[in-house]
């Protein structure tokens, strides 16, 4: 076995090394009851110097691809540039060093940010109310579906035990509906990538609590029958949940609240540029129409004007579905998103979506003769190709194409999702990439297609230049080794 790229911090550890300094204790020592005291020798943490720590994590960081390093066209994830300004603002001491339970009059600036962000998000998406509490998109889905459930229950409408979910939906949608106690009914897509209206009509009924719809959907397509879908669902007494993961396509283009959605989540870590941090934190605010507002997680932030002075405070909601997160949500992400909206204004937000959609169509158009496109029509912020031709003709799978892209310094697109597209390659360039980057990426995709034809093994064995090569994931899952053991 070869040496690891970087040893574990535990392997670097040497007894007696330290990387911290604390003031001397300035109060008398109190006795520690023996039955509670831990043997300090049994605390399995490393012992390293400050330079050890710095080198170790710097080395690790250099093994990552990241937006600041290169193009990251990971579909559905909106890997746009994360402005440095947002980071500077989020690190201001009045935002970082504030305790969530401080008296309201000592946190008026923080509450104002939350209050205004609630309003901005509701305005941009066309809704009446908002909560910032959910920690990510999936938790926003949980909140949204719970408000739908609470709405039906409040009306004594208790037989609605099904949530309809299109087959193109992200896995969090059915998982969320199940967590909320609903039976999931899958609705198939039609030949143009829309929700199949006949299938919808067949499944909708008095037991329908709602439909979870992503629009634009995960095929990167704007549903051509949106109004009809909402009508069908509403007529049956169901509500429309919007998965707003793809909101980046439609800022200032259309307000989901004006085309039939009752409630929707927004991923601040996608559309509103908060950094993904290698898997989070995110933030998944939920916006809704007034008929669902009483059920939002508690509390929400309100403004009162007294003697010409604005005063912000938390208001508890008596009809709430409850809390989904401690305190008030991922405030640090709220600050970043707020800053981002203030920088852009209305026109700037529309520019984002226009450029995101232009970039995706530009890529699709240049690649559609070489790769199959899943649905040949104007796409929104992402395009879904298929590697089925390459697979059939040359035995080169989408996975191989994705891995080969890594050799050229790109992160791969999202692959094998949505599930309904064979050998799916889902490319989301975002608005922040330059034409130069797009052109180079297109050239690389064309080159890989040529390689697939001429030297298929070259693609099948990729990557070659990455810190590690393809991993044996099957063995890893069969014999899971999930940690180092300090004490054997």
């Amino acid at each position, binding site marked *: 076995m070869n*040496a690891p790229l970087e040893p574990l911090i535990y392997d670097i550890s040497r007894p007696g090394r330290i990387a911290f300094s604390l003031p001397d204790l300035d109060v008398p020592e*109190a006795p520690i009851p023996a039955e509670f005291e831990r043997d300090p020798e049994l*605390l399995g943490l490393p012992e390293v110097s400050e330079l050890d720590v710095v080198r170790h994590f710097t*080395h690790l960081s250099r093994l990552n691809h990241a937006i600041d390093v290169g193009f990251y066209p990971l579909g559905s994830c909106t890997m746009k540039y994360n402005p440095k300004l947002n980071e500077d603002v989020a690190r*201001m001491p*009045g935002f*970082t060093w504030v305790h969530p339970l401080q008296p309201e009059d000592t946190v008026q600036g923080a509450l104002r940010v939350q209050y205004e962000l609630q309003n901005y998000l509701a305005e941009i998406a066309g809704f009446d109310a908002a909560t910032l509490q959910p920690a990510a998109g999936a938790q926003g889905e949980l909140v949204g579906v719970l408000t739908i459930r609470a709405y039906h229950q409040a009306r004594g409408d208790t037989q609605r035990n099904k949530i309809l979910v299109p087959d193109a939906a992200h896995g969090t949608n059915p998982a969320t509906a199940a967590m909320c106690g609903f039976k999931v009914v899958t609705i198939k897509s039609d030949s143009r990538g829309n929700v199949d209206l006949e299938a919808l009509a067949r499944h909708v009924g008095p037991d329908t609590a709602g439909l979870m719809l992503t629009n634009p959907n995960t095929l990167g397509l704007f549903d051509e029958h949106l109004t009809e879908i909402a009508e069908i669902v509403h007529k049956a007494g169901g509500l429309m949940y919007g998965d707003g993961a793809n909101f980046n396509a439609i800022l200032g283009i259309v307000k989901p609240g004006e085309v039939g959605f009752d409630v929707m989540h927004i991923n601040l870590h996608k559309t509103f540029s908060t950094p993904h941090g*290698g898997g989070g934190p995110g933030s998944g605010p939920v916006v809704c129409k007034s008929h669902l507002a009483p059920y939002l997680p508690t509390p929400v932030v309100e403004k009162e004007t007294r003697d010409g002075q604005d005063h912000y405070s938390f208001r508890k909601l008596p009809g709430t579905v409850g809390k989904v997160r401690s305190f008030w949500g991922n405030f640090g992400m709220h600050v970043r998103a707020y800053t981002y909206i203030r920088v852009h204004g209305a026109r700037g937000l529309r520019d984002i979506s226009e450029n995101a959609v232009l970039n995706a169509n530009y890529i699709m158009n240049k690649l559609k003769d070489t790769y199959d496109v899943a649905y040949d029509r104007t796409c929104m912020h992402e395009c879904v190709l298929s590697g089925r031709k390459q697979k059939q003709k040359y035995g080169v799978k989408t996975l191989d194409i994705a891995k080969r892209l890594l050799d050229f310094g790109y992160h*791969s697109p999202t692959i094998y999702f949505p599930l309904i597209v064979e050998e799916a390659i889902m490319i989301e360039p975002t608005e922040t990439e330059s*034409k130069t980057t797009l052109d180079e990426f297109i050239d690389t995709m064309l080159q890989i297609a040529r390689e697939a034809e001429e030297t298929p093994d070259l693609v099948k064995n990729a990557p070659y230049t990455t810190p590690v090569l393809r991993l044996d994931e099957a063995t890893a899952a069969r014999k899971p080794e999930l940690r180092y053991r300090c004490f054997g």
Partner: protein
Amino acid sequence: MNYISHSDAERAEMLESLGLQSVEELFEVVPRHVRFPELKLPKALSELEVTRLMTDLSGQNTNVLSHPCFLGAGAYRHYIPSVIGHLAGRAEFFTAYTPYQPEVSQGTLQAIYEFQTMMGELYNMEVANASMYDGASALAEAAIMAVNVTGRRKIIMPRTVHPDSRAVTRTYTEPQGITIEEYATVEEALEHLDDATAALLVQQPDFLGQLLDLQKLSDAAHAHKALFVVSAYPTAMGLIKPPGDFGADIVVGEGQPLGMALSFGGPYVGIFTCRNEYIRQLPGRIVGKALDKEGKQAYVLTLRTREQDIRRERATSNICTNEGLIALIVTIYLSAMGKQGLRQVAEQSYHKAHYAAAEIAKLPGYELAFDGPFFNEFVVRCKSAEAVEAVQKACREAGIIGGYSLSEVFDDMADCLLFCCTEMNTREEIDRLVAVLKAV
């Protein structure tokens, strides 16, 4: 201002290659009457203007760096070493996504593997996942996991579990028809354990600061073959015995005290650990070791068939994005503080809280509400609910962020305040607090 890279000329070229006159044509699929709505937003600002605005808003918040703070109650002001901001702030960590392509994500993956190791060590548990949203949702997911493991549908917990953790647990479990029974005290909770109980959930130290006899609780839960689930303050593990020593089945926690700034409540990070036998029921992401095709050691997301993207409505949880960066912060923190540093932080927090408690207890009109052992939080009973308000007001006037008024959560504790000390509180700060209380 915006962050778009094209020049107008380049945009024109791109439109031309698509055979379009204007970018608006890309949106013809949107019904005309709702296309291009007006957004009522304040006008766009330059970087300079936004910085001014945000400096002003930040300045309207009293920060706990320049003010003494005795608030805890689930979020803790601990020292954050300088290395953390510099290392966790590296864009290679910061601007990466979930490590789906392991060949170009080894940095994130190895850091998570180290995180999982440290969480296991901290709580003396066998395995950990890659993080949950926060301590509260981690406890809620633990309740659901206990139901799935045992096939039983009742959860018992005392009200001395953090109120937000209880609230979130109720929200997550109620729609699934899981019964949550909450009792005033741990003793009362124990009386209601039976063979239909999936799990006993407790918090160590509890919400009121008290240290619990975990062995007794563990034995009581296991006598009914219920799981024993503990939510534990991770910093305290530097000094007190971890739940794993007493046979806990699932241990969760709020990771914020380990290097993450208070940030008005988030982002924080949920810690989730359990016994090895339950790994296939764990919620969330897990990193494992793997070999590449040349035999080089590496790390990869593993046991993925539990997750929503594969299992969909049958997944163990709907969680997707987690708190990766905060888990990294925790990992760097525990590397920097190390075995000795975490012990010292815990000891200092303990001693300072005991000093403060002893000094306050000497004052007429104040007494400690409990006489059991505590870590770094304690409840002070004042003469009346009015006295609590007077104390809070006096603290504010003295520029001190005082304790937490328990009237917020317990009707029968309206005359009580919950105080917290950490290594950040100097003796001089504590003496000032005591003087303020004395003067009320």
